[in-house]
């Protein structure tokens, strides 16, 4: 067993434990139906979090995700009203996400400023743009939206894999290949581990950083597309605070916020854990929904402590 798989294992264990616990307390919890629902409900945020994983692995952060999700939805809804096919507007928004991310990455590298500040600016800019486009919720009426929602693969035991979950799994597979089996992925890990050394080793800083944020922008736009199709509407406040949930999913998934260490697959389980917690609390019915955030927060604390211990006792990060 490799040390670097330990955090992922911890995440998967927590996920399994929560799922089983739910099954013990509530009838019908430990079923593929519930699993299918969790996947469907959280697909958009997991997609965005996958992009964020790259950003965090490179040693950066992206706060513009939630606003991107909102912006994509609002624009898609308006284009829908103007008669665009949702796939066409989705393609446009994916291109926009890519370009916007690349722009953020360029500014971060060119001005050598904190990614926190630049993407915070991005957060405000895009959210503001949402309200410029429109103030109310606008529905997507194109028949494709319903067709998309009706598309699913049934599980033998009553559950189903929705189209949004399928998109998410495909996006995850692509991300795993990019992160772990391409030279670009290797460079992302290098730059996150030690930017100065990586540059001396021939990693082009500018190109890598720009690509990382472009990828992050692309994935958050994809998250936005899925959210718009899933809710069949565009709402200017959609996605508010989702950047933080995405970051939480990444950290719960075992990726170190300091960069350079982590696995993309972990993010799936991190996001699923967050989804599982809220499902559990909703199942209970008598618990205040505030507990969703409280338990999510508590879990984050625990995980960060575990990671710290792993790093110091196994030399997961730097030398002891």
């Amino acid at each position, binding site marked *: 067993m*490799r*040390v*670097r798989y330990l955090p992922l294992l911890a995440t998967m264990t927590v996920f399994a434990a929560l799922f089983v616990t739910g099954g013990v307390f509530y009838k019908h919890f430990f079923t593929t139906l519930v699993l299918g629902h969790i996947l469907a409900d959280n697909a958009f945020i997991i997609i965005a979090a996958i992009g964020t994983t790259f950003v965090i692995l490179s040693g950066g952060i992206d706060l513009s995700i939630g606003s991107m999700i909102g912006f994509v939805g609002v624009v898609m809804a308006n284009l829908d009203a103007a008669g665009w096919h949702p796939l066409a507007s989705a393609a446009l928004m994916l291109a926009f996400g890519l370009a916007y991310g690349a722009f953020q990455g360029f500014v971060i590298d060119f001005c050598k400023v904190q990614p926190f500040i630049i993407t915070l600016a991005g957060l405000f800019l895009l959210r503001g743009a949402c309200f410029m486009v429109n103030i109310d919720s606008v529905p997507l009426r194109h028949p494709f939206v319903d067709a998309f929602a009706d598309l699913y693969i049934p599980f033998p035991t009553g559950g189903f894999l929705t189209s949004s979950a399928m998109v998410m799994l495909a996006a995850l597979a692509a991300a795993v*290949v990019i992160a*772990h*089996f*391409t*030279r670009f992925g*290797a*460079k992302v*890990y*290098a730059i*996150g*581990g*030690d930017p*100065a*050394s*990586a*540059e*001396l*080793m*021939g*990693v*082009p800083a500018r190109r890598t950083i720009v690509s990382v944020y472009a990828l992050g922008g692309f994935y958050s736009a994809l998250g936005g597309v899925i959210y718009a199709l899933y809710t069949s509407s565009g709402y200017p406040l959609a996605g508010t605070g989702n950047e933080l949930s995405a970051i939480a999913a990444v950290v719960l998934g075992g990726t170190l916020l300091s960069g*350079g*260490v982590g696995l993309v697959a972990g993010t799936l389980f991190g996001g699923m854990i967050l989804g599982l917690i809220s499902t559990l609390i909703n199942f209970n019915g008598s618990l205040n929904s505030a507990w969703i955030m409280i338990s999510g927060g508590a879990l984050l604390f625990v995980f960060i402590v575990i990671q710290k211990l792993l790093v110091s006792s*196994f*030399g*997961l*990060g*730097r*030398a*002891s």
Partner: protein
Amino acid sequence: MTSDQPPRVELVGISKAFAGVPALDRVDFTLHPGEVHALLGENGAGKSTLIKIMTGALAADAGEMRLDGRAVAVGSTAEARALGISTVYQEVNLVPTLSVARNVTLGREPRRFGLISWRAAREKARARLKRLSLEIDVERALGSFPVAVQQLVAIARALEEDSRVLVLDEPTASLDAQETRLLFRILRDLKAQGMAVVFISHFLDQVYEISDRISVLRNGRLVGSAATAALPQRELITLMLGRELERVEQRAAAAPKAAGAPVLAAEKLGRRRWIEPFDLVLRAGEAIGLAGLLGSGRTETAKLIFGAVRADSGRLTLDGAPLGHASPRRALRRGIAFCPEDRKAEGLVLDLSVRENILLALQTKRGWLRPLPRDEQRRLAEAMIEALGIATSDAEKPVGQLSGGNQQKVVLARALASKPRVLVLDEPTRGIDVGAHAEIVALVRRLCAEGLALLVASSELDEIVAVSDRVAVLRDRRIVGEIAGAEITRETIIELIAGG
């Protein structure tokens, strides 16, 4: 001998200034295929800056570079690599969080159908390391290995099959004799195949052993270039320093002097998988050397004694009273100071200024609630800069901008500034030039004479012999012998290390 073909690399009139302070001034440098060219000079002379320009890590302000007679502009290290220039930079400039295999292959990972084959990458890394007789788990994070191993990994990375120029900036700084011999054997092979090698080192013996030609920089200027055979060592040193070096490096105390009272004593101190329990007594006014091969437990012993790492057996006593759980902060408060081996990862805060770094240990000792007055800070820092001859434009320069050897001096200065009673040094002179080396040895001996208890771990036997009153020899993470006084010679130490 190579007059019929153009030089492999030609640098003409290279100048470079940092924030207006010149580091290189119209330097010319010529490198032929099939030669090992030593680039020498004092700490801060500009050696690393020159090779950084040659390998695309820095852009020159003026001058040009020719490769095989053609003018080239090397804009980045990746471009240099593509032109066949492989480099091992000073310090280990690899990524500690990545596995050894990833570090060796980064940027040139073997691919199948466009995707990286990690199996092939691991094999490539293993094969490279094998040339250096290093068999380690290539999937472990690089940062979990000792500095010497990291240095070998950096060298392994540079041994690309398609290289035509190999640049080595102090590659042997943390290697011991055996590994250095291996490296030199490889260099000779490469040379025979027509590789052009630039070799930077402060070990003059090594320079004479391996190099064909020597160029010397002083204060950013080229002050001489000659065939190695035509440049005797005395002349070379004078050329480097701009003055003659007095011989201070002989054993200062040939006769064993009366050792003072025991200060720090380790009784059956040990830690599992780290170092076997050992006894060691440090006395006031006495210098103890720790000798042994790479991995024999030198660093481990030093860290246990300082308290950077906790022991799981035995105990430490200070002036006869047992020390509780050790921690660096407690150790500092009690007057024990430590210079770690890995200055980049453990020693310095590269973004802080020289002054702040020097005062770090002293401030810890006083406690953070009692800050030193600003004037006092400046005075102390300047005094240390003066005493150790740290070449810096001023005390407020970030340490990361100093040359490697000068960074090492700051590590020493920091330990000394805390006015310790016990000083533990791990590879204290790594990357320090001959002139400064002599001064530091003299300084340490003087402090010892004033009552300091000293422990020095070093891979350099000459250094151990020069400073120690007593030597503890380590093998396989165990202290296997102790020698004192006149018995301390290279030969007796080697014999003990070898298991005689």
